[in-house]
């Protein structure tokens, strides 16, 4: 094990302080609660920061200045928007399936938040360092399909329903190459534990050893979180806003919160799997982690603001005919490479 640094030190300090006042068994519970609180803090902060970031990035790419009125450099624009959304009228379409309609955005938020439990923000700073960490992430993020479908169906709106149907087609087909692209990394590490994966990259990042997997992962991840050029689910010029068409105010905001939470999540996974997680010289580990995540987020934003949208048949063809074989080939190459490496050493 490495020497203990960064966030873990803070956590230990906190644990010490709590230990003075509370009996031992409550310290664990309190620390869990604090961790959960921190994770929710991160989720809501990422949404606020990323919405602002997205607007500034898009403005930069479109030679505009972006938000610049509310607060210095428009920093408070997202906060203002949040208040605006909260004050909006809550409209429910006639003929909507009431409970399903209300539950959909809330349920969507659960997998988005649950995925954060396994991110190694820093050395030892994982809420739950499961031995099936990355597999847990895949399983949890696959749950995002149902809420979209519920929202689309419950809205009693054809655009929403088409959007819901597209979600299923898209997410199910892109999950397969995504899993296979991750498999290459898992094969090399021999473990699905997030901290093991990061530790294995101390010398060489996996983006060097697994370039194909990285490319496949980035493309499939873009599709998983429904961002351009794979934003067919909301495809605003075709189906208005897909499943979100009938949602207003806070419910609409919840969808967006989940979208940005997911954007952060896939970037964090890319960082963990391919970019060496919290490894990096000079700076503390968690700073490196967030810097790399920011880089990935920027990449996803760059995609969104330069690419047109694919058509549904092209999307499916790309997923099944290009990415899936590519990911399979990568698995084979990895296996052969590992075998040769073992023979040589």
């Amino acid at each position, binding site marked *: 094990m490495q020497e203990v640094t960064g966030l873990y030190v803070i956590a230990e300090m906190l644990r010490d302080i709590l230990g003075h006042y509370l009996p031992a068994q409550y310290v664990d519970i309190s620390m869990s609660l604090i961790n959960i609180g921190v994770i929710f803090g991160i989720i809501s902060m990422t949404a606020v920061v990323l919405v602002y970031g997205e607007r500034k990035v898009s403005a930069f790419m479109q030679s505009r200045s972006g938000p610049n009125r509310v607060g210095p450099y428009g920093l408070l624009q997202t906060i203002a928007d949040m208040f605006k959304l909260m004050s909006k009228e809550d409209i429910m379409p006639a003929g909507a399936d009431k409970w*399903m309609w209300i539950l959909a955005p809330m349920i969507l938020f659960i997998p988005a938040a649950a995925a954060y439990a396994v991110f190694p923000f820093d050395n030892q700073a994982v809420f739950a360092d499961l031995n*099936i960490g990355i597999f847990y992430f895949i*399983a*949890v993020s*696959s749950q995002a399909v*149902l809420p979209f479908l519920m929202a689309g169906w419950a809205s009693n709106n054809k655009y929403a329903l088409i959007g*819901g149907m597209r979600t299923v087609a898209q997410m199910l087909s892109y999950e397969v190459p995504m899993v296979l692209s991750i498999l290459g990394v898992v094969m090399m590490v021999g473990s699905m534990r997030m901290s093991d994966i990061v530790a294995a990259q101390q010398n060489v990042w996996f983006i060097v050893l697994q370039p194909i997997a990285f490319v496949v992962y980035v493309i499939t991840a873009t599709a998983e979180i429904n961002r351009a050029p794979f934003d067919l689910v909301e495809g605003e010029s075709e189906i208005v806003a897909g499943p979100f068409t009938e949602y207003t105010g806070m419910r609409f905001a919840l969808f967006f919160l989940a979208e940005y939470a997911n954007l952060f999540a896939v970037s964090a996974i890319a960082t963990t799997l391919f970019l060496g997680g919290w490894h990096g010289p000079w700076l503390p580990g968690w700073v490196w982690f967030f810097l790399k995540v920011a880089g990935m987020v920027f990449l996803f934003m760059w995609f969104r603001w330069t690419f047109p949208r694919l058509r549904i048949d092209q999307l499916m063809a790309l997923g099944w005919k290009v990415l899936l074989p590519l990911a399979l080939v990568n698995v084979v190459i990895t296996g052969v490479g590992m075998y040769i490496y073992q023979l040589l050493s």
Partner: protein
Amino acid sequence: MNEWAYTAAFFIFAAVTVASAVGVVTKNDLVHSSLLLALCFVGVSGLYVLLQADFLAAVQLLVYNGAIAIVFVLGTMLTRRSIRHGTNHSEADAPSRLIGLISGLFVAVTLGVIATTPWNYSSAGAVQDTPAVLGRLILTDYMIAMEVAAVLLLAAMIGAIVLAKGVDEE
């Protein structure tokens, strides 16, 4: 903390599983039924976690909830919306009564077996790295079984593609 937390978690997951399973049968709307089925799967995977079978729990989530339940829900949603009420009849007609009777008998027999079996408690600790062990088993002892299943699934997939593509009219 651990003891009562686990107990509480068990009862919560068990309640969710049973309640949603009952809902699947009694709900009047097929779409609601299939969504409750998804919830039931989630409850079951929670129970797996409590049994320290976390890999199995994740598989349950991914395969049953992430794929099978979605296909169920999708299928039911594609039926026409206007006639969705009463798509899942639960009238007390003769076949329903018969099925109810058989199910009741099945439950009674199962409960009886559970109650009368002398269960042995395993003293061995839970396997820590389940995926590795499972992977090794699948690729050695159960190789043929897995390959057979794979071929079967492939055939099913080809069949599905043929069905979905349809045949030209002429």
